[in-house]
């Protein structure tokens, strides 16, 4: 087993048995389900909205070269510097060099999962820069030295008490009782940071090829401030974020809000198409857009799973996933948790090291059904399993399956074995889940169904004999 798989099984096992954690997550998501359904009900046709959104992303992803060049040219036309980064190291190196050239010391960062993916804050801190997360949830987990728990709700696993403790310890703040007081503590700290920072870093939810804009969705206003106050702005954008037309956003922005946060529309949806223009009095003097590949082209090269690049990172598949709800976000050990993370991480970081995520699925299909851009998530989990085995067969599984098939095709043997099973059942029950049980891996966490006292064949024969 890979070390990633060992970590996953250990953490998943621990959290599944943590009933307090499970109850907490259920409660946090309970409100989401109600509000999301209320919002969805307002749509004239939610399924048609999904089809439209999926078609827009399909068009973009399947003509990615065309739309990226268009985006890049349109951005450059208004004075934005576009940098194409093949991997995370290249992106981080470029951003550090921009900071160096502009004499930057302090960076204020709004939420970017792509930045998280390439460990951008750590790389910049190593280069001697101060990096502060401005999104409240991200700020809290940054203070605690934790990765985000959920791609949309980074601190959903924490109670107000835990957050209060963190603030007291790290910020020296007074004891606070309510989410409102805690939010205001962070607001006051952050206000200073915005005004002091000389560089802002943001992600992007979409990038519009037609007009040359990136689009940022948020609720707090931290991205608005981070992208307009510092003199230098860098936005890191995965290459799959591009959409062909501005009008695509008329559907995608409300859907992202509904699927992701059970809102009609999130509080701020900002289009950025360039640094401060002639006639403008504020906004960054330099604007850099980093287009990041980081193995997205490897996923693109798999036509079967290419639609995983449609993902708009709304987190809806996490919220409905029975696995996520039981093992929590940190157990995955990935930047992207839940079904979408289980699907794409093997492509981004290696199939053999991350295949275990595709096996931890009940295949209930809830993820595929909820996805606003119709990614075939649960089938992709199966395809990852198939690909992993085809690439590296498990030597001891093959004779077992072959033996099973041989046995099942021999009725005489089956007739002989069934009573044997009945005979051994008391022993099997007695040792169930213990180390001496040869099937303990399976039986430790699962019930053993009782062996029927009669096979169907025996029952049928007896029934006819009576007549």
């Amino acid at each position, binding site marked *: 087993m890979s070390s990633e798989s060992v970590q996953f099984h250990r953490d998943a096992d621990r959290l599944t048995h943590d009933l307090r954690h499970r109850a907490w997550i259920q409660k946090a998501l309970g409100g989401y389900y109600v509000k999301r359904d209320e919002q969805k009900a307002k749509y004239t*046709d939610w399924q048609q909205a999904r089809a*439209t959104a999926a078609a827009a992303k399909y068009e973009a992803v399947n003509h990615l070269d065309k739309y990226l060049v268009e985006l890049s040219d349109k951005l450059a036309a208004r004075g934005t510097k576009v*940098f194409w980064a093949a991997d995370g190291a290249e992106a981080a190196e470029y951003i550090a060099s921009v900071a160096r050239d502009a004499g930057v010391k302090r960076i204020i960062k709004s939420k970017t999962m792509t930045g998280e993916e390439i460990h951008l804050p750590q790389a910049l801190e190593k280069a001697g820069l101060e990096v502060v997360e401005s999104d409240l949830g991200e700020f809290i987990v940054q203070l605690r030295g934790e990765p985000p728990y959920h791609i949309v709700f980074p601190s959903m696993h924490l109670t107000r008490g835990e957050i209060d403790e963190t603030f007291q310890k790290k910020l020296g703040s007074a004891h606070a009782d309510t989410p409102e007081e805690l939010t205001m503590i962070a607001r006051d700290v952050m206000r200073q940071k915005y005004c002091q920072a000389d560089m802002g870093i943001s992600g992007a939810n979409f990038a519009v090829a037609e007009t040359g804009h990136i689009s940022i969705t948020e609720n707090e206003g931290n991205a608005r401030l981070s992208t307009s106050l510092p003199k230098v702005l860098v936005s890191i954008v995965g290459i799959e974020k591009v959409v062909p037309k501005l009008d695509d956003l008329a559907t995608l922005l409300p859907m992202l809000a509904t699927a992701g946060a059970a809102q009609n529309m999130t509080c701020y949806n900002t289009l950025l*198409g360039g640094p401060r223009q002639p006639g403008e009095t504020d906004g960054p003097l330099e604007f850099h857009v980093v287009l990041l590949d980081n193995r997205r082209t490897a996923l693109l090269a798999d036509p079967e799973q290419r639609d995983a690049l449609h993902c708009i990172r709304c987190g809806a598949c996490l919220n409905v996933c029975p696995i996520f709800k039981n093992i929590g976000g940190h157990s995955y050990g990935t930047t992207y948790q839940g079904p979408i993370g289980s699907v794409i991480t093997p492509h981004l970081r290696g199939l053999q090291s991350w295949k275990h995520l595709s096996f931890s699925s009940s295949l209930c299909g809830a993820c595929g059904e909820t996805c606003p851009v119709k990614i075939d998530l649960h089938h992709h989990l199966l395809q990852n399993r198939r690909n992993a085995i085809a690439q590296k067969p498990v030597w001891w599984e093959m004779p077992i399956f072959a033996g099973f098939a041989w046995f099942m095709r021999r009725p005489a043997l089956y007739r002989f074995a069934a009573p044997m099973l009945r005979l051994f059942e008391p022993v099997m029950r007695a040792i169930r889940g213990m180390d001496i049980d040869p099937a303990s891996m399976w039986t430790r966490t699962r019930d053993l169904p009782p062996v029927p006292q009669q096979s169907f064949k025996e029952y049928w024969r007896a029934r006819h004999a009576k007549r």
Partner: protein
Amino acid sequence: MPNDSREKILRRIREALSVKAPARHLVGAHQSGHSPQDWLPPVPSSRADLIALFEKNSADLKTEVRRCADAAAAATVLASLARDNGWKSVGSHRFSLGNDAVSALGLPVVFTDAPYETASLERCDAGISGCECLVAQTGGILVTSASAGGRVLSVLPPHHVVIASASQMVGDLADAFALLRKTEGSVPAFASFITGPSRTGDIERILVLGAHGPKRLTVLLVES
């Protein structure tokens, strides 16, 4: 820094796309000729109904909407807001609906359509701005640099007051985009939909207003 990766990435993309993906995502999607109205939340056609929808959505979002018969009435409402909340200074810019109302306040004003100090805007009690348009379907307010005094005014002070004319009401986001292209010639380098006062649910998923942006958002809707 030289950028060698552009061609490398484009080559990888073209290689990958040489194998076609199944087109099942196009099945069931409307072809061209359909408007977002066919799937998004419905939008009425008359202006009065649009305004009613905007008000309803605003109430859900905790945006305060005050209908004002004319510009003078808006000035009166603005003056009472200033009085009731003890404003000491405000940020604003020059726009036809707001000029008189802002100067009538008799307060120090930081104008953001001329070079200004961020720190002095940060100390203001309110930001008073115009907007590009109002979006009924979402309860949103579209701001641009030209229509709302730059990129910062609408988000830095703790109370944002928008003075807008009822004729600026549009149906949905697509209408707003169309208007934007018409009035500004092209989509400007900065545009933002503001949908309610700043909010967060990051602590226990409990809604708190005023996370980083304004804690209060007031729309003065001038009807004539």
